[in-house]
C-alpha cells in the first residue's frame, strides 16, 4: 500500500500502525540496513551504530578527546507514522504458547524492535510476572541461526525454494480427500488453529491428525478421566489453602500457571495476612516447591504412590474419612513396606489434612501414573480441597504419547504418503522406541515447519521456515481458558510463516493471512456490536475478559474408579528402586524445557536453581548413593536402560531420593544451532512409550572419566574444611525461624547479632531527597530465576559461554545463592538429604561502599540518591572494587563479549543501557535507566515520584513479588514499611557497609513445631559470630 494511504489509515490504533509500519519502505530500508541478505558479519560498524548504542571503539577513545569518533548519520522517517515518537518505547500485549497454554505478556518495543518481554497484568496465568523461559524467548526471535529459507531435500540433494514453489507443490500434495495424509502438530489452545484445523479436516476428511508434546500434563488429564469418566482440567487454588501437599509435583515450575500458583502461595505464606499455609512435599529430586516445603521427604518417584496411598489409608483408618465405596480399595492399597521417615511424614500430613477439611489440597506431578492422579482426585473430592475443574478443551484427544505411538504405527505400516509436521521436533524428542527419525525417511513427502533447520527438518523433504511467536498473528487460551491475543511485534525477519497460515494454505480454501484468520475466527466466536472497537480493546488488553471456561462440579464415576484402584495396586506392585536396580527420572529442564530452547544463550547460561549448572545437563545423584555406586562428583557415569546406553556426568545433589537419579531432557541436540549443538547429553534416548517419565531398573556404572561441569557456585562437594565453614555461615546469611517462634518473639532474627555499635570514624553523610532501597523477602522467594533473565534482557548482559563460566566469569548481575543445610556431624559422602534455601544476591548498594574508596579513578562513586554508581566509560579495569566487594556481585568484562555477536542479536539491546566493552567492571544499577525514565518526566511536570512508580526489571517480573523497590526517605513507601518489619536484616551488616538492600527473614511452618535444622544452625552460627567485632 502507498505510504500516504498508510498514513491516513494509521493512527489511533497503534497495533495497526505497527503492522503497516512494518510494510512501509523506511522500515524495509531499516531492515535492509540491518539484514542485507545473508551478509551477516560483513556490516560496516557505522550502520550498527546508527541503530543502537554500541560503544565499541568510541569507548576506547573516550579518554582521548583529541579523536573525533566516526561520522554518524541520522535517518529520520520520510513519513513518521502518527502516534509514534522515535526513541520512545511502546508496549504491546501479546502471548507465548508453550505446551498448549498461552501465557500473556507485554512486550516493550523500541523503534520497531521488540527488546523485552514482561508479564501481562491482565492475564490470569501471568498477573504481570513472566517465567524465565518466556522472557528469554525474545532472544530466539533474533537468533541468527534460525532458518531463513525454504529447503527441499530430494535424493541427497538440497535445493533452496521460495514460498510460491511450496504453494505449487502443496496444491498437489493436498489435492485429494486426505487419504495417506497425516498432520503432526504440537499442542495448541488457539481457537483460530482449531478453526483452521476444522477447515483442513473438512477438505481432507481422510487425513490423520496427531498432536504430540514431549512434556505434558496428560497423566493428570487421564487421572480425571479415571475418576470422573471424562477428561477434566484441574485448577488447584493455593491462595486459600492451609495445607498444600505435593507428590512429585512442582507447581512453581512445570505447571502452566506456575506464576499464579506461586503468587497465591506467597500470599498464603505471609506471616500476618497469610493463611499460614503449610507445604508438604514428597518427591524424588529437589524442586522449587521442595525447597520451599515445610516438610519434605525424598522418595523415589516410583515410591511416591506408596506414600500417598499410606496417607489415604491413615485418613480412613485414623481420621475416619469416608471414601466412595468404589474407592475404598485405595485405603487398602497401602500394604507396602515403608520407612519410618515416610510414616512420620504421612502421619503429620494425614492429621493436617483431616484437621484442615476444606482448606487443603493434594497435587500430584505430571510424571506420576494416571491412577495416582485418580487417587489424589478422590481424596481432594472427599476432603473438599481447594481444587476447581473445568471441561477439557479437547476431551477426546488421545494422550500425546498414545498419539505419537499411533502415528509411528501408521508410518511403519506404510499407509502415510504425506506427513505435515507443524512445529515440534519429533525426530529428536519422540520416544526412542519409535525410531521416528528412521520412519520419516520412509515417507515419500514429509514437510516440516520449524524455526530451525533442525534434526527433523534434515530428515524431511520440505523444510519451511516458521515465523517466531513475536512475528505472527494468533491467539490462544490461558490454563483457565481465558482468550488471549497474539500480535506481531515486528515483520517476520526471516520470511517465516505461522502454523495457522500453513494449515490454512494446505487446507486449500479461504484466506491464508494470519491476520485475516484470527479476525475471522474472533468475529465468529464473539458477538460484539462494534467489532473494530472490540478487536482494538482485545489487542490492547491482550486478553478478552470473561472468556474463562465454566468450572464444573464433577461426580466421581464408580465404574472407572474400580479400574483406577486396580491400576494403582498394579503400580504399587512393581519392585522399588534398589542398589541393583536404581531408577532414572526424566524431567523437563528448567532452562531448555524439552529442548526447543537449546539454542538460547540466556537459558543455556542460566544457572539451574538447585545445581547452579549451566551449559549442560547432569545425572543428579545424592552424595550417599553416589558413594555407594562408587561415582564421584563430575565423574561420567554410563547408564544402561533397555537397549540404550548413554554416558552422562554426575552432579552430587542432596535431597535426591535414594537409588533415584534425575536427568533433564532437552540436551545433546545435534542440529539446534551454534549455541545449542552438542551441549549436554540427549536423555530422550532412554525415553520409551512405555516408560516416558520414570525409567526403572537401569544399570549405572562409573567410567572413571571426569568432566568439568560449569556451575556458577562451588559444587556441593568441596574440601571438608570449606564444607563445614559453609555450613556454619548459612544460618547467619540466610536467617530463618519457624513461624510460631517468630510470632511469639519477633526479635528472633536479630537475637544473635552481636557486634559493637556500627559507628564510622568520620561524620556520616546525610542523604536527602529520594533515597532508593530494596527489600527482598526470603520467605516468598522461590528461586525461579525469572529475575535473572529479566535483568539480563534489561541490562544488555552478555552471554559468555561454558568455558568462561567454568572459569567463574559469568556475567549475570543477579545470582540466586543456594545453600544446603546438612545435619551436623555427617561425612560428606554420608549425606542423603539436606535442607535448601535461596537468597537472591545482587549489588546491595552499600552506603559505605567498600568498592568506591579503592577505585583509583573514581569510576565507582555514590550518587545523591544513594546509588552506588558504576561508570563504565571511566573504568580502567583494576578489578580492585570487585576484590573488595564482600558480596562479590561485581562482574568484569574479561574479553569483548559482544565482538562476535550477530547484528540481529544486537537488535535486542536496550538502547537505554550502555553496552559494556572489554576491560570494564559492571554490576547491578538498581535499573537506573528505569529510575531516570520516571524521574525526568516527573521533574518536567514538577510532581513527586509516586511509590511503586519505579520498578526495576527484577522486581517487575518476580512472580511472588519478593522484591520491593522504593524510596527509603518516604516512611509510607512500601519498602520503608517492609524494612520496619522485625524480619528485616542486612547481610554482613557487621562490616558497617550499610547495605541499601535488606532481606526479610525466611519463615518455616512445621507441624511438629520445631524450626528447620537451619534454625539450629542459626544459633550455632550466631554464638561464634557473637564474638565477632565489626
Amino acid at each position, binding site marked *: 500500500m502507498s505510504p500516504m494511504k498508510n498514513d491516513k489509515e494509521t493512527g489511533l490504533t497503534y497495533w495497526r500502525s505497527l503492522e503497516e509500519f512494518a510494510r512501509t519502505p523506511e522500515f524495509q530500508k531499516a531492515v535492509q540496513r540491518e539484514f542485507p541478505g545473508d551478509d551477516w558479519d560483513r556490516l560496516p560498524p557505522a550502520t550498527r551504530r546508527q541503530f543502537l548504542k554500541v560503544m565499541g571503539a568510541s569507548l576506547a577513545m573516550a579518554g582521548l578527546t583529541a579523536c573525533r569518533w566516526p561520522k554518524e548519520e541520522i535517518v529520520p522517517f520520510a513519513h513518521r507514522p502518527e502516534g509514534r515518537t522515535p526513541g520512545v518505547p511502546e508496549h504491546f500485549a501479546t502471548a507465548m504458547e508453550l505446551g498448549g497454554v498461552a501465557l500473556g505478556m507485554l512486550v516493550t518495543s523500541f523503534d520497531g524492535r521488540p527488546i523485552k518481554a514482561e508479564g501481562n497484568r491482565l492475564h490470569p496465568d501471568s498477573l504481570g510476572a513472566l517465567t524465565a523461559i518466556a522472557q528469554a524467548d525474545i532472544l530466539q526471535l533474533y537468533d541468527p541461526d534460525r532458518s531463513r529459507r525454504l529447503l527441499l531435500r530430494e535424493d541427497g540433494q538440497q535445493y533452496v525454494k521460495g514460498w510460491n514453489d511450496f504453494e505449487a507443490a502443496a496444491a498437489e500434495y493436498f489435492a485429494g480427500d486426505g487419504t495417506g495424509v497425516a498432520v503432526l502438530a504440537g499442542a495448541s489452545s488457539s481457537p483460530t488453529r482449531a478453526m483452521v484445523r476444522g477447515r483442513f479436516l473438512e477438505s481432507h476428511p481422510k487425513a490423520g491428525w496427531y498432536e504430540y508434546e514431549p512434556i505434558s500434563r496428560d497423566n493428570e488429564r487421564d487421572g480425571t478421566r479415571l475418576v470422573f469418566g471424562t477428561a477434566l482440567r484441574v485448577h488447584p487454588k493455593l491462595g486459600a489453602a492451609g495445607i498444600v501437599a505435593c507428590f512429585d509435583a512442582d507447581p512453581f515450575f512445570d505447571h502452566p500457571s506456575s506464576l499464579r500458583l506461586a503468587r497465591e502461595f506467597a500470599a498464603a505464606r505471609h506471616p500476618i495476612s497469610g493463611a499460614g499455609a503449610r507445604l508438604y512435599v514428597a518427591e524424588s529430586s529437589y524442586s522449587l516447591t521442595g525447597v520451599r516445603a515445610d516438610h519434605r521427604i525424598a522418595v523415589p518417584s516410583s515410591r511416591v504412590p506408596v506414600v500417598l496411598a499410606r496417607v489415604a489409608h491413615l485418613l480412613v483408618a485414623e481420621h475416619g474419612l469416608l471414601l466412595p465405596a468404589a474407592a475404598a480399595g485405595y485405603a487398602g492399597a497401602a500394604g507396602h513396606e515403608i520407612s519410618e521417615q515416610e510414616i512420620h511424614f504421612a502421619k503429620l500430613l494425614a492429621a493436617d489434612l483431616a484437621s484442615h477439611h476444606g482448606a487443603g489440597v493434594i497435587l500430584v506431578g505430571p510424571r506420576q501414573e494416571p491412577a495416582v492422579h485418580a487417587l489424589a482426585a478422590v481424596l481432594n473430592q472427599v476432603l473438599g480441597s481447594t481444587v476447581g475443574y473445568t471441561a477439557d478443551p479437547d476431551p477426546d484427544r488421545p494422550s500425546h504419547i498414545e498419539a505419537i505411538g499411533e502415528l509411528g504405527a501408521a508410518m511403519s505400516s506404510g499407509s502415510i504418503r504425506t506427513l505435515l509436521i507443524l512445529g515440534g521436533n519429533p525426530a529428536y524428542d519422540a520416544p526412542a522406541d519409535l525410531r521416528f527419525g528412521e520412519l520419516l525417511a520412509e515417507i515419500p513427502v514429509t514437510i516440516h515447519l520449524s524455526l530451525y533447520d533442525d534434526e527433523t527438518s534434515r530428515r524431511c523433504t520440505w523444510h519451511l521456515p516458521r515465523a517466531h511467536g513475536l512475528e505472527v498473528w494468533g491467539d490462544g487460551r490461558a490454563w483457565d481458558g481465558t482468550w488471549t491475543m497474539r500480535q506481531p511485534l515486528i515483520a517476520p525477519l526471516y520470511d517465516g510463516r505461522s502454523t495457522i497460515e500453513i494449515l490454512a494454505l494446505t487446507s486449500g480454501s479461504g484466506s491464508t493471512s494470519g491476520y485475516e484468520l484470527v479476525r475471522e475466527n474472533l468475529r465468529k466466536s464473539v458477538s460484539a456490536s462494534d467489532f473494530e472497537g472490540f478487536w482494538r480493546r482485545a489487542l490492547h488488553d491482550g486478553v478478552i475478559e470473561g472468556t474463562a471456561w465454566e468450572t464444573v462440579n464433577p461426580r466421581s464415576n464408580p465404574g472407572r474408579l474400580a479400574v483406577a484402584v486396580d491400576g494403582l495396586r498394579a503400580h504399587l506392585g512393581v519392585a522399588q528402586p534398589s542398589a541393583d536396580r536404581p531408577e532414572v527420572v526424566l524431567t523437563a529442564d528448567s532452562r531448555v524445557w524439552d529442548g526447543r530452547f537449546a539454542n538460547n544463550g540466556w537459558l543455556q547460561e542460566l544457572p539451574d536453581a538447585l545445581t547452579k549448572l549451566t551449559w549442560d545437563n547432569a545425572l543428579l545423584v545424592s552424595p550417599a548413593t553416589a558413594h555407594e555406586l562408587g561415582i564421584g562428583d563430575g565423574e561420567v557415569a554410563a547408564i544402561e536402560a533397555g537397549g540404550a546406553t548413554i554416558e552422562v556426568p554426575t552432579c552430587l545433589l542432596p535431597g535426591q531420593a535414594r537409588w533415584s537419579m534425575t536427568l533433564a531432557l532437552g540436551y545433546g541436540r545435534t542440529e539446534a544451532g551454534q549455541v545449542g549443538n552438542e551441549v549436554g547429553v540427549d536423555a530422550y534416548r532412554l525415553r520409551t512409550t512405555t516408560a516416558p517419565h520414570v525409567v526403572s531398573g537401569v544399570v549405572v556404572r562409573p567410567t572413571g572419566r571426569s568432566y568439568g561441569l560449569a556451575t556458577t557456585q562451588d559444587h556441593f562437594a568441596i574440601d571438608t574444611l570449606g564444607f563445614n565453614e559453609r555450613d556454619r555461615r548459612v544460618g547467619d546469611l540466610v536467617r530463618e525461624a519457624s513461624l510460631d517462634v517468630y510470632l511469639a518473639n519477633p526479635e528472633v532474627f536479630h537475637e544473635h547479632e552481636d557486634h559493637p555499635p556500627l559507628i564510622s570514624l568520620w561524620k556520616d553523610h546525610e542523604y536527602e531527597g529520594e533515597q532508593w532501597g530494596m527489600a527482598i523477602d526470603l520467605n516468598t522467594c522461590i528461586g525461579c530465576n525469572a529475575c535473572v533473565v529479566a535483568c539480563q534482557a534489561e541490562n544488555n548482559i552478555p552471554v559468555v559461554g561454558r568455558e568462561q563460566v567454568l572459569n567463574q566469569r559469568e556475567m549475570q548481575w543477579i545470582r540466586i545463592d543456594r545453600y544446603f543445610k546438612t545435619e551436623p556431624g555427617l561425612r560428606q559422602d554420608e549425606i542423603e538429604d539436606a535442607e535448601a534455601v535461596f537468597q537472591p544476591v545482587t549489588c546491595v548498594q552499600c552506603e559505605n561502599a567498600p568498592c568506591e574508596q579503592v577505585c583509583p579513578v573514581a569510576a565507582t562513586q555514590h550518587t545523591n540518591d544513594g546509588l552506588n554508581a558504576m561508570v563504565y566509560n571511566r573504568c580502567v579495569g583494576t578489578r580492585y572494587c570487585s576484590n573488595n566487594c564482600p558480596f562479590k556481585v561485581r562482574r568484569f568484562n574479561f*574479553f569483548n563479549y559482544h565482538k562476535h555477536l550477530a547484528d540481529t542479536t544486537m537488535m535486542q539491546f536496550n538502547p537505554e543501557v550502555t553496552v559494556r566493552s572489554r576491560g570494564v567492571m559492571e554490576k547491578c544499577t538498581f535499573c537506573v535507566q528505569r529510575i531516570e525514565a520516571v524521574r525526568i518526566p516527573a521533574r518536567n511536570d514538577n510532581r513527586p515520584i509516586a511509590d511503586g512508580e519505579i520498578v526495576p526489571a527484577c522486581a517487575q517480573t518476580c512472580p511472588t513479588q519478593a522484591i520491593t523497590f522504593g524510596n527509603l526517605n518516604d516512611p509510607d513507601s512500601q519498602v520503608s514499611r517492609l524494612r520496619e518489619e522485625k524480619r528485616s536484616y542486612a547481610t554482613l551488616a557487621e562490616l558497617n557497609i550499610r547495605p541499601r538492600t535488606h532481606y526479610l527473614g525466611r519463615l518455616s511452618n512445621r507441624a511438629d513445631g520445631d524450626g528447620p535444622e537451619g534454625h539450629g544452625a542459626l544459633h550455632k552460627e550466631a554464638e561464634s559470630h557473637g564474638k565477632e567485632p565489626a
Partner: protein
Amino acid sequence: MSTIALNPVSYLDNTGNDPTVRARLVVGDNDFHSVTEKVCGIVEQPRPPKIWWAAFAASSSLTLVLFACIGYLVTTGVGVWGLQIPVGWGYAIVNFVFWVGIGHAGTLISSILFLLRQQWRTSINRFAEAMTIFAVVCAGIFPGIHVGRVWVAYWLFPIPNQMSMWPNFRSPLLWDVFAVGTYATVSLLFWYMGMIPDLASIRDRATTKLRFYIYGVLSLGWRSSNRHWHRFEFAYLLLASLATPLVLSVHSVVSFDFAVSIMPGWHTTIFPPYFVAGAIFSGFAMVVTLIIPTRKFFGLEEIITARHLENMAKIMLATSMMVGFSYSTEYFMAWYSGNVYEAFTFLNRAFGPYAWAYWTMVTCNVLVPQVFWVRRLRNNTLMLWVASILINVGMWFERFVIIVSSLSRDYLPTSWGYYRPTAIDVLTFAGSFGLFLTLFLLFVRFLPMVGMAEVKGVMPQAHLDHPGHRGHGDYHGDIAVREVDV
C-alpha cells in the same frame, strides 16, 4: 696479617669473628690503582666472556617472550590470564609485589647501611642499587598491564582533561602509583649520582673517542675536586636520609593495597612492617643470587669478599625470623580477634585448597634460612647460593598466598572460587625475569659494578697511619669528625 693468621685456609677468607681484630674489607694485595684496574677492566675489555653472551642470548629471548605476551594481552583482554571473580588479582599483582620487594635491597644497602656506617656496603651497593632499579622496572610493568583498558591507564595521573575528572586520592592503588613512581625516580638519581666519579674514572682511562665521549658526558665533567666532593658527600648523605624513610614507605604503601581493604586475610595492621621485612629479605636473597656468580666470573672475590656474603647471610637470617614472626602473629590475631571470617581465612591458608602454596612459603622462608646459624654452612658459597634461590621462591609464594588464597574464599561461600594461572600468566612472569637479567647483564658490561671511589675510601691506604691495620677505618667516612689543627 692477624686475620689471615686466624684462617690459614685462604687469604681470601676474611670471615674471622675475632672481636679484637677488624676484618679487612678488601683482601689480597690491592692498592687504589689495582682496584681501578679490576673494576674498569671489566668495562674496558673489548669483548665480554662467552658466558656473558650465552646469558645475554637467553635472557633477551625471554624478554621477547614478555613483550609477546603483553602484546597478546593488550589486544585480546586480561581474560587471557587466569583471573576471575572472586580472584580478581593473580600473577600480575603477585609479580608486582615480588619485584618491588626485591627492589628494596639496593636502596636499603646504599642508604640505611650508609647511615649506619656499615663500610662493607661499599663493595656491593652499586651492584645492589642497579638490581633495585631493574627490579622496579619489572615491577612497574605489571600494574600497568594488569588493568582492563591499558590505553586509559593514564587516568591514574592527575592530568587536566576535558572530563575535568581527577583521580581518587583516597584509593590505596593511587598511593601505590605515587610511591613506586617516587621510589623508582629517587633510586635512579641515587644510583646515578653515586656513579659519577666512577664514570669519570672510565672516562679518564678511555682509549677510544667514543668511550671518552659517552662516559665523558655521563660523568658530567667530574674532576674529583674536593670542593665538589664536599657537596657531593652532603648530597649523598641527604639522599640517603631521604631514601631511608622512602624505602620503608614504599612497601608499606604496597601493603596498604591489601590492608586498607576489608577482605579477611588482607585487612590487618601488621602488614607494613611485615611487608618491609619481607622485602629486605627477598632483596638480599636476590643480591646474593646474582652476586655469587658475578664475582666469580669477573674475578672480584678480593673486593666482594666472603665476609660480604656472610654479612648478607646474617641479614637474611634476621629478616627471615621477622617474616616468620609475622606469619605466626597473623594466626594469633586471627584467633584472638574472634573474627570468624579472619579465623577461617587462616585455617584455609594452612589446610585449604592452597595449602601446598602456604607450606612451600613456610619451608623456603622460615626453615631454609635456619641453616645460616651454622657458620660453616653460611660461609659455603654454594649452600648460600642455593638457599638464596629457595628464599626467592618462598617470597614469591608469600605474595601468592596472601593475594590468591585470601581472595579465593571470602565472605559468601557461594562466591568462593579457585584460581588457576594460564600459560600466559606463567610466560609473562618468566619474561619479566628475562627483562631483569637482560638489564642486569648490560649493566655489568657497560657500567662500573663496584663503587670504586667508595671502596678506595675504606682501604687501608686511605688513612694516615698506613701501612698498618690497627683499628683502621674506625673513624673515616664520618662526616661529624672534623680534624682539629695543631
